[in-house]
Structure formats: C-alpha cells, structure tokens
C-alpha cells in the first residue's frame, strides 16, 4: 500500500456526503468499479482494507459527488505515483 494523500478518509467523505450506500455503489460502478454493495460498505467503514486501485475507485466515486457541488476532490487518494 502506498501513501495516502491529504484529505478526507473514505468514511469521512461518505459521512460528509450524506449519500446512501446504494447511491455510492452506482457512482462506483460508473467510474468502472466492479465490487458488490456490501463489499463497498465494508471498505468505506474500514472493515476490509482496499488495495490502492480499489481505494482510488471509491475515492473518485465520492469525489464525483463533491465535484457536482463545486468542490475539488476533498476525499484523499492513495498516490500510486507510477503513471506519470
């Protein structure tokens, strides 16, 4: 696992959004995620540890919600730093 950049955790972002897990799951599917709703919940709540890619998929799904509100990516990504 690589370093997490500064910003909100998945759990804090989820809480701040006020979204339902069903809505987050749809957003996660839209950014090309492929896990089930319960697995997604478990990652967000910290009951399972996602790999960097999975973490960033969920972070992007959350951030898409905030972008629609005019905010710039408040949820932190894990910096994979190899694709530059």
């Amino acid at each position: 696992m690589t370093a997490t950049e500064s910003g909100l955790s998945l759990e804090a972002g989820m809480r701040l959004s006020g979204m339902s897990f069903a809505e987050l799951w749809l957003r996660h599917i839209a950014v090309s995620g492929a896990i089930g709703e319960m697995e997604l919940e478990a990652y967000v709540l910290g009951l399972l540890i996602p790999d960097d890619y999975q973490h960033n998929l969920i972070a992007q799904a959350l951030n898409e919600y905030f972008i629609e509100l005019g905010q710039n990516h408040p949820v932190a990504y894990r910096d994979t730093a190899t694709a530059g």
Partner: protein
Amino acid sequence: MLRQAVALGRDVAPDTMGCSVTTLDGDEYHTPVYSDGLALDLDRAQYDAGDGPCMAAAREHRYQYFDPMTDGGRFPGFTEAAVERGVRSSISLPLTTADRFAALNIYASSRHAFDADRPRAVAGLLARCVSALLASAEGTRLAGDAPAAASKIEAAQTRARLIAEAEAALMTERSLSRADAFSVLTRRSRAETRSIFDVAREVVGAGEGGRAR
C-alpha cells in the same frame, strides 16, 4: 450462516451483551435466531410485556435506540426486565424482507453504546447482511423497484464503458496497467477540477492517450 452473522452483532460496540432477530408472523413475534440465551430472554421479555424496541422496529420499520434510564416511559413493561438483566442501551434495526416484518436487536451493558456514528454504521451494515440472508432463506429476492433500479445500473454501466475506453486508449498508447491508466484520469480530473467523465470523453474523443497528464 445466519447464526454466524447474528453472532457478529456482539462485536458491533463495546459491552455488547447479545444480538437477535425478531420476526412478526401474523400478530405473533418470534426470535428465530440469537447469539446467546440472554438475547433470547430479553426478546421474550418484550413479547411478554406486550411491547419493546425490537417489536417497534419490526412493526414500524424504524430504527429504535433504547436507554432504560431515560426511555422507560415508552416501554414500561420491558424496561424493568431490561434493567434487571443489566441492559443499559440497545439498538433495533428494521430488516428488509419481502414478505414479513423483522428487526435485528443488539443489547449492551453500557449507556450510549450505540450513540457514535461507527457502531451505528456497522450495525446498519450487519442488518443489511442479515436481511439478505433472511431473504435468501425465505427464497425471496430483494427486488425493490426493479425497472427503476435496472435503469440506473444501465446508466452507470454506460458511463463505466466510457472510462474503460479511455483507460484502454491510455494503456495502449503509454503501455500502462489499468490501475495506472485510471490514476492518469483521476490526476487530470483533480488538476483541472472537473469530472473524470469529462476527462475520459476528451481522451477517447481526441485519441490523446499519449498527451494525458
């Protein structure tokens, strides 16, 4: 499997004493699954008293947070039995099944055990798992509003195809893994303060995988 899930209820919060499932069949309440005898005993005390938080959660399909020190007036018959058995707080969550009313109950020996966001969220997740297991056991499906749900999923999958196309362009042109291609898209989305879908559309439309930052 259902018993194992209900047993996990004991880990939802510190000082948890037991966990159970209440079902309403006709006008009769039952406890088909429980983590230990105390949880069964507490459920039965509610059925004997004629009301209690787990019955209210199943019947009204609403969360019930119960503190016998302050909520005694709501369930007078049950409160005394709860205090006698050492219960200082409980949470009862409605379960979604297709053809019956049900609730998941978790009892704790400390006050405010379920006040924080985290135990509430974990209890909510467990309730969803138990709902799915109950539905499966009953041979039912949690279809909900199936056509509307299918339409939303289809829309999400359409957007996912756009992301996949952009990833494929980046992977081909820059020899990246899928995870790294996704990172390129998220990085550009952040740098330009716009949606990843706009970035992906641009990458696909312009064939600019090689130019994406």
